[in-house]
């Protein structure tokens, strides 16, 4: 059934359809309406779950860690500063291999204080051992959140489902909502193999002395790499059941593309329209939308962009002192390749600044110029910057 829903409502409804047993909640803009909605579901008896109100995000994720260790399906949601406050526990959750699912509604980080969207928050914790999936629209939020539980539980890795604040979180669009019985069929009851149980005492969170620690990090890395197959497999089963296809990335008109745009999240929607515009004028521009930032789909990205003349990475984050994180990760993916396209990086849309068609055309134009010149001068550029600052670099 189609419903007109915001991104936040889609995330909350997905958690309800997944029959989560424990929700730990602390409000933060622009995530708040997710846990608000879930509190309504619990209060009016639509969802049989323990709803834990805590005093901080650090505690919110800590409560999820404890709950997940008892073997129940757990969920929380956060944004920005909240994710930063959770950062210590992010590493605990992945290190303990607890399949927690969390929504991160992407919002920029202080300072300057901002409540608007960019992806700096989740990008900053890309090394925390969480699977990170990015969504383009509200349908993807619902579908990816449902899939996230199955991916998490079958890999014993926590999953962060990320989507753009306000652009999706507070914007409504039609979403196809599956029946509860269909979701039940897709998400069987969860059995965590090492659940804390007084009848069978065990221990979690033991000290990792130098003789052991490295093996556990290796196991986490191995499972993360294997998770690529799991994300594909779960996407395939989901498609068979619900008719919508999901993978590690989406290729849009890339077959014969000379220039490929690469991005994550809602910006992909705008870029698809721009690709169509270029195609109408006979210009071979395509788009790759990355869905899985961690694990990073090296082989699939190589396949997708390997034959292009240039790739322009548009991203809403920056690793100050280097480049955008997606750009540096793409560079890593292409290292040691016999043939690599020219790579350009465009930092844009920080803290909710609109990424306009004008800016996108500027990015494509610079990339075309690089292709003509056969080299890239100054690969990391900013779009839409005040002219008064342009002279600084």
């Amino acid at each position, binding site marked *: 059934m189609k419903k007109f829903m915001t991104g936040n409502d889609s995330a909350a409804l997905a958690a309800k359809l997944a029959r989560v047993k424990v929700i730990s909640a602390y409000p933060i803009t622009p995530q708040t309406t997710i846990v608000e909605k879930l509190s309504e579901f619990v209060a009016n008896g639509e969802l049989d779950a323990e709803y834990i109100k805590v005093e901080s995000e650090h505690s919110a994720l800590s409560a999820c860690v404890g709950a997940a260790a008892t073997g129940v399906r757990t969920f929380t949601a956060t944004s920005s500063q909240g994710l930063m406050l959770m950062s210590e526990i992010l590493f605990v959750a992945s290190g303990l291999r607890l399949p927690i699912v969390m929504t991160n509604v992407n919002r920029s980080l202080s300072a300057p204080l901002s409540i608007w969207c960019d992806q700096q928050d989740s990008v900053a914790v890309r090394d925390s051992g969480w699977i990170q999936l990015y969504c383009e629209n509200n349908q993807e939020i619902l579908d990816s959140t449902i899939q996230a539980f199955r991916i998490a539980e079958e890999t014993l890795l926590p999953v962060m489902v990320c989507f753009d604040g306000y652009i999706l979180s507070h914007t409504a669009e039609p979403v196809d909502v599956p029946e509860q019985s269909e979701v039940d069929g897709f998400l069987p009851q969860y059995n965590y193999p090492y659940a804390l149980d007084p009848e069978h005492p*065990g*221990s979690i969170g033991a000290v990792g002395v130098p*003789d052991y620690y490295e093996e556990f990090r290796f196991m986490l890395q191995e499972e993360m790499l294997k998770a690529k197959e799991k994300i594909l497999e779960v996407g395939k089963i989901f498609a068979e059941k619900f008719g919508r296809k999901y993978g590690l990335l989406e290729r849009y008109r890339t077959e014969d593309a000379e220039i490929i745009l690469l991005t994550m999240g809602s910006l992909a929607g705008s870029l698809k329209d721009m690709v169509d515009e270029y195609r109408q004028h006979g210009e071979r521009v395509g788009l790759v939308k990355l869905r899985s930032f961690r694990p990073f789909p090296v082989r699939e990205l190589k396949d997708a962009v390997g034959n292009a003349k240039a790739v322009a990475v548009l991203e809403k984050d920056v690793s100050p002192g280097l480049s955008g994180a997606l750009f540096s990760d793409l560079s890593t993916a292409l290292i040691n390749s016999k043939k690599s396209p020219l790579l350009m990086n465009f930092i844009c849309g920080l803290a909710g600044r609109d990424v306009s068609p004008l800016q996108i055309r500027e990015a494509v134009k610079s990339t075309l110029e690089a292709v003509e010149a056969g080299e890239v001068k100054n690969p990391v550029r900013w779009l839409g910057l005040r002219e008064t600052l342009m002279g600084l670099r």
Partner: protein
Amino acid sequence: MSSHTSTKKLLPGAVIMDPGSTEQNETGSWRSMRPVTDYEKCTSCMSCWLYCPDSAISCEKPPKVDYRYCKGCGICANVCPVKAITMVPEGQK
């Protein structure tokens, strides 16, 4: 460092499913100084047993150090009223 349980399968998340297995973890391997008791001087006053923070000294007369768990902190040598315990660097007799 010796590996006491390295033949065991490592479970995801460093989960330990056999309770009480810490006993097998012989933490005495951390020690750099070893307490050695001169039983000619020892009066079995049991101060060392009482003060040992790791319960690595047996409750018997005279008390004996369990070197599998003693981490060599030296508290026993410090509290001994008759100076019967000396700390000797590991590797020396």
